[in-house]
């Protein structure tokens, strides 16, 4: 299970924090600080795994991290997660960050570290994307196209709400009744359906 996802910058400022196990507020801040301390003193050419710090649960837990531009992406996971699997997941998430960066750069060149700031400007949206990837500490979806498709559906809803904001009640019902378009790459299961032969009938 994933215990926490922490994104912070080179100075240890939190940019996105999501805990999947409860920690008190001040404990969370301590964990962020400890993790930053552990991760930031490592070179870029060493391995991406760290045995957990003392706060988040000791040696049963691993920190899997990537350093990208000004940001550290840290996943704290237990032994039931695959190290390399998570590492690739982080890469998927990073590509989103990168995407945001490109997007914002075109609109506003005022900020020097756009990549970072954009994470927080769109904090809620980043959280929604994260929700499509990880749910309750479990990996829900790893396919980027699939994640994008989900976010897209949500965006479309947001837009239609924006248009109908004058009549909120109607908007709600409209969204409810909206025939959400099929995700373009929805899997055609057809004949290559997975067969589970020896299951007893319910």
């Amino acid at each position: 299970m994933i215990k926490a996802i922490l994104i912070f910058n080179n100075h240890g400022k939190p940019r996105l924090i999501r805990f999947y196990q409860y920690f008190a507020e001040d404990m969370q801040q301590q964990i962020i600080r400890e993790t930053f301390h552990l991760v930031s003193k490592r070179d870029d050419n060493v391995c991406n795994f760290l045995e957990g710090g003392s706060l988040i649960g000791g040696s049963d837990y691993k920190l899997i991290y990537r350093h990208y531009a000004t940001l550290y992406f840290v996943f704290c996971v237990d032994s039931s997660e695959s190290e390399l699997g998570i590492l690739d997941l982080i890469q998927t998430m990073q590509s989103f960050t990168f995407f945001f960066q490109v997007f914002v750069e075109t609109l506003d060149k005022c900020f020097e570290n756009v990549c970072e700031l954009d994470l927080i400007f769109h904090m809620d949206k980043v959280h929604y994307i994260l929700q499509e990837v990880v749910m309750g500490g479990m990996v829900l979806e790893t396919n980027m196209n699939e994640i994008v498709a989900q976010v897209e559906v949500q965006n479309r809803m947001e837009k239609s709400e924006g248009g109908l904001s004058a009549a909120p009640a109607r908007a709600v019902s409209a969204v409810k009744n909206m025939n959400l378009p099929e995700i373009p790459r929805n899997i055609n299961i057809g004949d290559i359906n997975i067969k589970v032969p020896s299951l007893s009938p319910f």
Partner: protein
Amino acid sequence: MSDVVEKTLTALPSLLSLDSQPGSAKLSSTSKLGALIRGITELTSKHEEEKLIQRELASLKDQVSSPNTSMRQMKEAMVRAIYCEMLGYEASFSYIHAIKLAQQGSILDKRVGYLAVTLFLNENHEFVLTCYDYKHIIPIIIYCVYDTCNTPLVEEKLNHPKEIIRRKAVLALYKFYLIAPNQVQHIHNRFRKALCDKDPGVMFASLHIYLQMIKGYKDLTASFVTILKQVVSGKLPMDFNYHSVPAPWLQIQLLRILSILGKNDQSTSEIMYDVLDESLKRAEINHNITYAILYECVKCIYTIYPKTDLLEKAAKCIGNFVLSSKINLKYLGLKALTYVVQQDPKLALQHQMTIIECLDHPDVIIKRETLELLFRITNAQNITVIVEKMLEFLHQSKDDHTTIDLVGKVAEIAEKYPLQTMNTVFSLGGDMIQPDIPNSFLKLLSEGFESEEENKKLRLFAVDSYILLLEGETRNLPQRFLQVISWVLGEYSHLRNDLDPARVMTLLTKLLEMRQTSSETKTWVLMAMTKLCSGEASVSIARSVCEDLSSSMDTVQRQRAHELLLLSQDRALRSQLLPLCSDPEPLEVDSSLSFLDAFVSEALAAGAAPYKPPHQRQEELAQQKALSLEPYELSLPINMSSSCVTGRQSPTLMSVSSGLSGDSAELSHKGGSTTLKLEGVKRVWGREGYLSKKEPVEEVAQAEIPSPLSSPNQHTGASGTSSNTHPPIPTPEPEQEKQQLASSLFVGLGSQSSLCLVRADIYALHVAVFQYSLSVIRPVVHFEVMGMLSYQSSHKSHEVEFTYKLPLTNFIRPFTVSTEQYGAMWLAFSNDTKQNLNLVTDGQDSLTDTLNVLKGKLNLHIVEIIGMEGIVACRLAQDQPCLLHCHIHAGTLAVWLRSPVPDLPDSLLYHCQRALEGT
């Protein structure tokens, strides 16, 4: 990385539409959140940030509680509250509004509300319990954060036409199962149904569940194997490929499930051999994710019932990992090796060279993993090198977590191979190791194991190896190790019949002649000689040694030499005092020294002053201080205490002091009185050599103005000779060096604390704050922090000195232990002291009252109070415990303190006394 990014950019043009509404991004940078973020980035100090956020929170509070706030504003306010919480500022006023938002409004409002609720609250928060009925709890507790349907009941969602909803519902149910397993027994069937869902994604989600509860589902093995077979052979749609690997995460999950199923179960394992073979074969593409699959596969093969040709293939695979130039793969390779090596130690042999290389790897994590691997393959032959490597790493390591872990491992090895490990630990760890370690080692040797044969073998081995060591170069052996060696030789060399005691004596004499040997070690050596001394040759050696030492400056050495001389001449007395076969029965030590009573009363009658315990003496000295014009010296009689320490550390020495009764008592009493006379006399030379000063500048100040604040024993290390030779040095650079030197001298002397003050340039209107952490090296009653501030104003330099007195109580922390743990520790600690203290008598239960006073004033932890007895525990900041046993005896509180740290009981007792005097 770049290909992924590229893919994102081409695959996601629609994501741009997220903000294709004109102004939405503009809005983000001109919105209130944007303003807040920008405001924070412009700030320079944490303090300013705090002020800004508090202001922000106040305005947020107004906004969310105002009835006129629109949904849109509310959503925006929620995001800001989330941001503040992320930075560590509590926004609890918004919790209830987050819940409201999640309940009402449109789906998008709910979405923000749910997000805020899941970030703010946890299962145990009162709001979750009070504000929600069953229907609402489900989505919140299970983090089923948002879905496009309105019905909150998750189970219904399992039949939802949309695949993603079913998938989330499965995970949600699983979470629910984790929280309340009893209430959802009926959902097991639904899990099964999820496993055969027509969509592989839902099936994947259900694997999370089966991974957790798989033990009860042996009958599903064949199904899982079939699923994996289909996945591996590419039966899934192309969409599930990740870097042209079919559904890698699914494969990983399935392999894990299979390894749990096949563990210790031959028939189940046989079903999966084929598919594992297939997986190994297919995973050939050079990408991270295939390595992830391979790694799981190898682990699985080594977990289930073994099959030879699969094991061979897996071993080859591990080889590829370990030899890889990619550091992450190397790490995993080492991990796999560590896992595998328990079944097949030969595999480690194949990769010997790589492992050796990894030991010197610049990455600490790789090093640690290698040590972990070595730890698993430790045996009697390689133990020395492995422990050496571990200790080497321990020296470099600064991370607490690592240190604790490694020390545990060394200890574990030590249990398996006591002698070899301890020899390595002693010779490498040297004088840095805790004094308790050699003690417990000697205890182990003398008490031994269950079989007598084993004991003898171990002791003989010890004698042989130590003789060998002493015949070699002894100069670099640490003092503690020498002490252990001399004890063992004295006690057990008679076991080796063909060994001439004179030979051992000669070796020991060599130690005495060495300049590096400390006086404490010399006493140990002399004791060993006393035990050994039999036969003509040895007696003559003993005699010459005694002649050398009879003029020694050290009273304890003189005493021991004297004993040696007498006993070497009187064989009958020697065999009576020091029987050859060491008695395994515990020696009875009369710690109250009641056999001295007659002697004491005689002395008192003759007009001698009554004995006062050291802390009481310190106390009195401190009270007289106002009249004194000279700084006082250390009042703890050093020689006395050193003889006490040796006495406690060696069981044999104890037997001597109790056995010798009157004679030795008289001598030791004399020893005590000589040292008492030293009070008030400047000590220039100490046990460790010339006693240097802490800071030259401060010394001058002391010589001129005796500070009425300072208490006598603070000057342990600071008592100086001529202050004139060290005039204050105005230039800052050399001073800084001096201070550093002073602080290192401080440590060398085993004094109170170590700190290094750094010169600070302070500009007008700026406040400079320096933080130093103090750690106690040797406990005393009070610590004194001294410092000097030098600054320049209009080209003139000024210096201000300051001192600050810290009582030991500042370093004391409560120590929470159970009564059982307390009992175990009590027996293990060697330094103790006893005293009767005043009772607090104004309440009903005087013991509880007294202990509560101590608890309140000294920050102690009361473990348990039973009737007239109470046990209390505390520790110094760096985990050095002190245990107190208190019981009411004749209207006073009899306290008995024990600790592994010398001087801690005495110093703490002083504070206990002070705390109770005030009441």
